[in-house]
């Protein structure tokens, strides 16, 4: 690197935890991205305030990525700015990575890792484990993956700069996502078994509720996400109706 970000690197890494703090529909995480970069930029351009402000204007523009994987871009941008790479090349890099870092992160973290750990914790709870064990398992296991991904991403970006795509290809996050989704199916079955036969589960509630739950499960599988909101409305309506009935009788 031509100019070192030095201690600014740690501050940038720590600020990456608030990268979505000013999320908005105009620049998305652009302002947060620039806020996270600032400590490193201040070190890199410590002798050139005008260059610092030019760099700020470059990075406050529209940007979006999954918050954990945005560390890949943060690390790479610190490297590019340190290497005095030209403005247009940096813009092209950010445009190229924001789509993949968003899509990969959403499918790996939100749609695979989070449900996996959540289902482990809920299965433990409904299988009768002490509640604090279920909660602690969730927090510890989830954040091992979370912090590992953030740290790996930042280091990979910093090490490889513009070539960080190679790290992403080598690790093959898409393949990991697919494996994790298979595990998710197994865990969903385990959770379903615990919800049916576990303490306070559907067996204890009776055949009527077990039958209705089976119908609801099949309906969810057939209709997908669009059934979520009507279900929430139906549950609230059922609670309201039952309460009204209870008041009247």
């Amino acid at each position, binding site marked *: 690197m031509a100019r070192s970000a030095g201690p600014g690197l740690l501050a940038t890494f720590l600020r990456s935890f*608030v990268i979505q703090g000013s999320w908005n529909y105009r620049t998305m995480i652009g302002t947060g991205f620039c806020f996270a970069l600032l400590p490193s930029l201040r070190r890199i351009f410590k002798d050139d305030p005008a260059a610092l*402000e030019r760099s700020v204007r470059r990075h406050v523009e529209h940007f979006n990525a999954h*918050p954990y994987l945005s560390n890949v871009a943060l690390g790479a941008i610190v490297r590019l700015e340190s290497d005095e790479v030209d403005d247009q090349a940096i813009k092209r890099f950010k445009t190229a990575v924001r789509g993949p870092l968003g899509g990969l992160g959403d499918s790996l973290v939100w749609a695979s890792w989070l449900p996996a750990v959540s289902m482990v914790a809920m299965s433990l709870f409904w299988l009768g*484990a002490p509640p604090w064990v279920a909660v602690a398992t969730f927090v510890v296991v989830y*954040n091992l993956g979370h912090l590992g991904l953030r740290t790996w991403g930042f280091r990979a970006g910093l090490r490889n700069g513009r070539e960080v795509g190679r790290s992403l290809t080598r690790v093959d996050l898409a393949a990991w996502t697919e494996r994790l989704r298979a595990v998710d199916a197994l865990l969903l079955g385990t959770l*379903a078994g615990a919800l049916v036969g576990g303490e306070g589960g559907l067996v204890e509630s009776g055949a009527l509720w077990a039958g209705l739950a089976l119908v609801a499960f099949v309906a*969810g599988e057939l209709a997908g996400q669009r059934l*979520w909101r009507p279900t929430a409305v139906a549950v609230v309506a*059922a609670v309201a109706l039952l309460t009204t009935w209870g008041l009247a009788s």
Partner: protein
Amino acid sequence: MELLLISLLGGVLALDGTSVGQFMVSRPLVAGALAGWAVGEPATGVLIGAVLELYLLVSFPSGGARFPEGASATVVAVASAAVVEAPEAAALGVAMGLIWGQVGGFTISLLRRMNGQFVPEPATASSRTVSIAHRLALGFDLIRGVVLTFGGVVIGRGLVQALAGSWPLPMDDTSGLLLVGGAVSAGILLRSLGGFRRRSVLFAAGLALGFIGTRLF
């Protein structure tokens, strides 16, 4: 004093949802446990948290999507249900949580629109304006979470106190009703994982494991 503590807890947990950290302590399971501890009803807290976690299994803070906010909703649900002794009040608490999750999602959209008004324009931005705008936005999100939780707990507690005595179902049926709603989320998740046809073997193996688990523990 307790109401302020709960509201602050809701605000801090709501921050974790998108703005700060995303350690997922904002998920209903964790938020429920913390709220239960705060109101002196840890068992109610974890139970309501686990039910809402099941409902929100297919809800993620993804990109610009509007999603039900689980953290403040769970704190509201637990704090509301905890005002009466009857465990059946959990149904009223969960219903309140489901409503408040939607209200929370709406306030996040509002906040994001507001953030768009004051984040600096790229052409005129400076290191100072970026720092100020970002910190202000973080502060607004904390205030949003605190006010949202405060309002929800005040309304929820009033409703539960007035209505809990009229709840007609015993606990087993109450659990059944709540789990039927959760079963829809489980079905939606299976579809998103590739559907029953593609995942039937793994799902069935998991189901068997789950049943065996219920007999062992």
